[in-house]
C-alpha cells in the first residue's frame, strides 16, 4: 500500500514557505493573493512521518485523517468542513518547533494533534504558549507538566504504572522488581515514582534493580541475563519495562530466546502495544503484560465499529488499533464537542469549554477532560496472546483521573493544577498557596 | 658523535630499515662533503627513495646514524625541522600546489618564518617580490606566473618544484629523478640548471637517465638492494663488473 495514495490526499499540501529565503521580502507580497476557496476549519497534524519515530507516529497521522474524514461525513463542525494540514517534523526535535510555528502562524490551524516523544512536546511547548493555540498530546508520558495550551489525552504515570504494579503484587505475588527503561525522561520519572511507591509499600531497596539503556539498544544479551540472575534470588520477580518502542523487539526476542517465560518472570510494559507487537512473533511472549487504557481486544460495540471503520479507511485488514489512537479518538471528539459548545474555533473559548467535556471512549465508557487538562480513563492490564493481541486480565473498577503532579516525587507532591477560573494555574503550590511552583 | 662525521655535510653510517620483513636499506653508508654534487643511480627497489625518506625524516631507520653537518642527528627530527635546517627535497613525481598560481607556489617556499601566526599576518614585501621574480626567471616560468600550477606541463612542474627548492635556500638539495618525463631538450636544460645550483649548494640527484647523469659529470654512487654497490666517476662505475651484473642481469 502506498501511504501517499490513501488518506493524505485529503490533506491540503501546504504552500508554506514557497517564498524563497532571499525572495521572502518580495514574495510576501503574493501571500495576499491566496485563492479564494470554500471556507474550512484547519486541523494541524504534527506527527513524524520519517526518521526513528515514524514507526509509531505515522499511524496517528492516519488516525486523525480518518477521524476528520468521519467528521466531515457527518457534516463537519459548525457547518464547515475540516481540513487536515499534514507536515513531517521528521523525528527532528527542533524541526517540531519550526513546524508547529508553521502550522499555527502560517497555516492558521485551529488545533494541532501531534507529538509522541516528550522532547518533541517540550520543543513545541513554547510555540503553543507564545502563539496561544491548542495541542492535543496523545501519548502516555511522565507527567510533571500541565500547560494551558496542551491537553494530555495519554496516560499519566498513575493511569498506567501504578495500577500495573498493584496488579503484579496482588495477583502474581511479585516481591522483587526490575525497573528497566530507555534512558530518557519518561522512564526516569516513571521509575522514580515507582521506586518511591514500592518503597512506601515496604519493598526493600535490594529488591529493586534499575537499568537504563540507550535508544534503539539492540544487544540485550547481558541485560536479559542479568534479569535472569536477579530473578533467581528466590523471590517472585517481575520486570517493569519502560523500554521505548524500537528497542522492544530485540528485547522481547532475547527474552524468548533465553527462555524467560511469563510464568517465571513476567514483564509488564508501558510502551508496548498492538502496533509494536505487530513486528514480533508473539508465540514465546504469551503471558507478558502491558498496561494501557485501551486494547484492541476491548469488547465494546463502539470499539468494534471503530476498528471496522479504521480497517475500511486504511483498506488494510491487518491494521491494528492501539492506545494512543484511542487517545486521539477521545481528544478529537472532545475538541469537536468543545468547538460546538463554544460556537467558535477561537483558542480561548475552546480551551475554556474543553474542561468538563465528556465523550465516549472506546472501552465502552466515557472519558472527561478534567481541570488539569488530563482526562479520566480506565486502566486495563492485558496479557500478550499468541495472535499479537492482548487479553485483558484486570481492569480498574472505576475511571482514574490523570495525576499530572505525582504524589511520589518530592518536587511535585505539593503541586496541583486547575485551569478554571479563578485559579487558572498549572502549578499551584498548596503549601505556599501560590501559583508558580 | 663520531669524528668520522666531522667536516661532512651529510653522513650516513650503518643504516638499516625493514618493511614487513623486506630489507629496504641494508647497512647503508654514504658521505657527502659540503658543496659536493652527487648522483645516485640504481635499479628499481635499490632503496633510493627510502634513503631520501630517511634523510628527510619521513621514515625513521631501524638502526644507524644519519648526521647533518657532522653533528645534527636527523633521525630525531621530523620533516619540518629537517626542512628548516636547510635540506630541500624534490619528489620523484612532481609535487606542486596545483590549485595555487606559479607565483604563489614560489612564495610559499620562500625562506621565511614558518609558524601559523607569522603566515597569518604575513604581507609580501618588495624584497620578497624581487626574489620571486628572480627565481621565476631562473626556472623560465616568469611569463606563466599567474597560471595555476595545474595548467603547467609535466616538465614545467618539475622546474617549478626545483624553483621552490631554491626558494627555500637550502644547503642540501635532494632531487629525485628530475628528468623523468622530460623531452631531451628539457633534460639538457635541467642538467645545466642543476650544475648552476651546485655551485652554491650541495646536491644529491637520484636518476635513471644515464645521459643526464653523464651531463652532470659528478661522482656517482650505485645503490643495490639497500646498500652501496660502487662509488666513483660514471665511467669507473659503469665498467665495474658488479654494477654491470646488476644492471644487465646475469
Amino acid at each position, binding site marked *: 500500500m502506498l501511504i*501517499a495514495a490513501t488518506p493524505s490526499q485529503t*490533506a491540503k*499540501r501546504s504552500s508554506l*514557505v*514557497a517564498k524563497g*529565503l532571499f525572495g*521572502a521580502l518580495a514574495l*510576501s*507580497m503574493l501571500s495576499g493573493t491566496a485563492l479564494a476557496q470554500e471556507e474550512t476549519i484547519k486541523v494541524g497534524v504534527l506527527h513524524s*512521518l520519517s526518521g526513528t519515530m515514524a514507526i509509531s507516529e505515522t499511524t496517528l497521522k492516519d488516525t486523525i485523517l480518518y477521524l476528520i474524514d468521519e467528521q466531515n461525513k457527518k457534516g463537519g463542525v459548525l457547518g464547515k468542513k475540516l481540513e487536515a494540514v*499534514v*507536515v513531517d517534523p521528521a523525528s527532528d*526535535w*527542533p*524541526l517540531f*518547533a*519550526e*513546524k508547529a*510555528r*508553521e502550522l499555527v*502562524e*502560517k497555516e492558521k490551524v485551529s488545533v494541532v494533534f501531534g507529538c509522541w516523544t516528550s*522532547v518533541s512536546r*517540550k520543543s513545541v511547548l*513554547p510555540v503553543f504558549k*507564545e502563539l496561544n493555540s491548542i495541542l492535543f498530546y496523545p501519548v502516555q508520558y511522565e507527567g*510533571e507538566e500541565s500547560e494551558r495550551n496542551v491537553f494530555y489525552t495519554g496516560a499519566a504515570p498513575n493511569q498506567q504504572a501504578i495500577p500495573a504494579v498493584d496488579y503484579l503484587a496482588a495477583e502474581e505475588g511479585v516481591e522483587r522488581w526490575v525497573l528497566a527503561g530507555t*534512558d530518557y*525522561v519518561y522512564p*526516569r*520519572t516513571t521509575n*522514580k515514582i515507582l521506586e518511591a511507591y514500592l518503597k512506601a509499600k515496604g519493598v526493600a531497596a535490594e529488591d529493586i534493580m534499575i537499568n*537504563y539503556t*540507550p*535508544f534503539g539498544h539492540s544487544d540485550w544479551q547481558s541485560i536479559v541475563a542479568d534479569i535472569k540472575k536477579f530473578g533467581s534470588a528466590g523471590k517472585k520477580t517481575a520486570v517493569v519495562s519502560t523500554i521505548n518502542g524500537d528497542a522492544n523487539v530485540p528485547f522481547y526476542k532475547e527474552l524468548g530466546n533465553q527462555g524467560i517465560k511469563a510464568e517465571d518472570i513476567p514483564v509488564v510494559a508501558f510502551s508496548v502495544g498492538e502496533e509494536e507487537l505487530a513486528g514480533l512473533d508473539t508465540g514465546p511472549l504469551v503471558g507478558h503484560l502491558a498496561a494501557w487504557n485501551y486494547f484492541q481486544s476491548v469488547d465494546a460495540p463502539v470499539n468494534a465499529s471503530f476498528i471496522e471503520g479504521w480497517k475500511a479507511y486504511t483498506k488494510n485488514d491487518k491494521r491494528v488499533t492501539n492506545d494512543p489512537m484511542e487517545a486521539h479518538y477521545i481528544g478529537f471528539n472532545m475538541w469537536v464537542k468543545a468547538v460546538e459548545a463554544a460556537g467558535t474555533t477561537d483558542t480561548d473559548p475552546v480551551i475554556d469549554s474543553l474542561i468538563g467535556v465528556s465523550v465516549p471512549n472506546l472501552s465502552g465508557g466515557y472519558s472527561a477532560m478534567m481541570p488539569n487538562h488530563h482526562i479520566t480513563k480506565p486502566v486495563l492490564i492485558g496479557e500478550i496472546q499468541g495472535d499479537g493481541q492482548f487479553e485483558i486480565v484486570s481492569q480498574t473498577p472505576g475511571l482514574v483521573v490523570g495525576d499530572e503532579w505525582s504524589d511520589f*516525587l518530592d*518536587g*511535585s507532591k505539593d*503541586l496541583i493544577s486547575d485551569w478554571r477560573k479563578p485559579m487558572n494555574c498549572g*502549578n499551584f*503550590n498548596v503549601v505556599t498557596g501560590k501559583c*508558580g*511552583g | 658523535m663520531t669524528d668520522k662525521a666531522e667536516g661532512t655535510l651529510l653522513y650516513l653510517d650503518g643504516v638499516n630499515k625493514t618493511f614487513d620483513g623486506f630489507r629496504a636499506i641494508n647497512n647503508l653508508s654514504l658521505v657527502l662533503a659540503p658543496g659536493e654534487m652527487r648522483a645516485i643511480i640504481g635499479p628499481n627497489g635499490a632503496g633510493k627513495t627510502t634513503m631520501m625518506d630517511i634523510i628527510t625524516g*619521513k621514515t625513521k631507520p631501524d638502526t644507524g646514524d644519519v648526521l647533518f653537518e657532522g653533528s645534527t642527528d636527523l633521525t630525531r627530527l621530523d*620533516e*619540518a625541522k629537517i*626542512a628548516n635546517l636547510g635540506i*630541500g*627535497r624534490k619528489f620523484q613525481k612532481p609535487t606542486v*600546489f*596545483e590549485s*595555487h598560481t606559479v607565483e604563489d607556489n614560489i612564495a*610559499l617556499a620562500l625562506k621565511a618564518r614558518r609558524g*601559523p601566526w607569522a*603566515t*597569518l599576518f*604575513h*604581507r609580501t614585501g618588495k624584497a620578497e617580490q624581487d626574489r620571486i621574480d628572480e627565481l621565476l626567471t631562473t626556472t623560465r616560468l616568469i611569463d606563466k606566473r*599567474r597560471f*595555476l600550477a595545474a595548467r603547467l606541463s609535466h616538465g614545467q612542474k618539475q622546474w617549478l618544484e626545483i624553483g621552490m627548492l631554491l626558494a627555500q635556500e637550502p644547503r642540501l638539495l635532494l632531487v629525485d629523478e628530475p628528468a623523468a618525463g622530460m623531452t631531451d631538450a628539457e633534460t639538457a636544460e635541467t642538467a645545466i640548471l642543476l650544475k648552476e645550483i651546485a655551485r652554491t649548494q650541495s646536491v644529491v640527484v637520484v636518476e635513471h637517465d644515464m645521459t643526464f647523469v653523464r651531463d652532470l659529470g659528478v661522482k656517482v654512487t650505485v645503490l643495490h638492494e639497500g646498500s652501496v654497490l660502487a662509488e666513483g666517476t660514471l665511467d669507473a662505475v659503469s665498467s665495474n663488473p658488479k654494477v654491470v651484473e646488476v644492471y644487465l642481469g646475469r
Partner: protein
Amino acid sequence: MITGFLLNGFDTRARVVFALLIAIAILVPAANLLLPPDHPLHVPTYMVTLMGKYFAYAMLALSVDLVWGYCGILSLGHGAFFALGGYAMGMYLMRQIGTRGVYADPILPDFMVFLNWKELPWFWYGFDQFWFAALMIVLVPGTLAFVFGWFAFRSRVTGVYLSIITQALTYALLLAFFRNDMGFGGNNGLTDFKDILGYNIQADGTRATLFALTVLAVAIAFALASAVTRSKLGKVLVGVRDAESRTRFLGYRVENYKLFVWTLSAVMAGIAGALYVPQIGIINPSEFDPANSIEAVIWVAVGGRGTLVGAIVGAITVNFGKTWFTGALPELWLFALGGLFIFVTLFLPKGIVGTVQAWWAGKRASAPAATLKPEPAE
C-alpha cells in the same frame, strides 16, 4: 595590523557578499518590526526565526568549509562543537529562568528538581552570568577541538580515519549528553527558556535582534574566514589540502596549521550553536547526532566546497528545501532531498557556487586564470 589583515582578505566579491549580509541583518528585522502586518513587504516573525536558524546553520557550514574546503580535513563531527556552544548558551538561558520554572526552585532547573537532584552540579556554576556563558561558548568547543586536534594531527591521523574518529567523538558525546546522570537534562535537553539578558526571548523585538546578531555573526565569520583563506596561512592550508607532504618538506609544521584552523573552525561552530539555541528554543543531544554533522558537510558540498559563499548558499538552500518539502510533500520529501544530493554530486560536482563560478570564468576566459578555482583534489 588586524584591520589590515581583514581588509586584505576582501576582494570585490567578498565585499558584495559582506554588504549583502549586513543589508539582510538590517532590512529583515526592520521589515518585521516597523512595517504593519498587512504591508506587502512585512516579514512575519516565524519567517524571521526560520531564517535565523538557516543563518546559524550557514555559520556552521562556514566552519566546516574552512577545515574541509581549505584544509582537506573532512570532519564528520562538527555538530559536536555546534552543540557544545548551544549547550553553553542553553545553560545560561536555563539559569535565567530562575523561580519561573514549574517548581519555582531558585537554583535548580526543572529537570533536576523532578529527578531529585539536591544541588547544582559544579559545572553549572557561573552560567547565571552571561559573560561566563559567552566565554564558555568559545572555550568549551575551542578546548575540545584543541585537545582532540593536538593528538590527532600530531599522530598524523588523516583522511577517512580522521573523519571516522570525529564521528566517534560526536557519537560519544551524543551518548554522554543523553545520559540523565550527566546533568544536562538527558534526551529532553534544555528548554522552556524565558529571557536572554533580561529581554523576553519570545518577544518580536528579541527575535529580530537575535536574527540580526546571527546574520552579523555570519558576516563577521565570513570576513574572518575570507581574510584567513586569503592570507599566506590560507595558502599554506590549501597546500596542505593538495599536497600535504610537499608542505611538510617545505618546512611547514602541518599539524600546527591544521590545529589552528581546526580550533578556529570549532569556535566558529560553537558560536553558531549559541546563536541557534535561543531562536529555536531547545537544545538536546540529537544535535550531536552524527547524521547532523554529515548533513552539515552536505550543505557545503551542495553550495560548493572551497568557496565560502558556497557554504552559506548551500546551508540556506538545503535547509530551505527541507522546510519547504516537509510541509509541501510530507510523505515524499526524502525522495526530493535525497534526489537533490544525488543530482548535485553527479551534475554539479563543484556545488552551486562553484559551478556558477566556473561558468563565469568560462565566459571570461581571457581573464587572469587566478580566479579559477580548481576542483578539490580529493
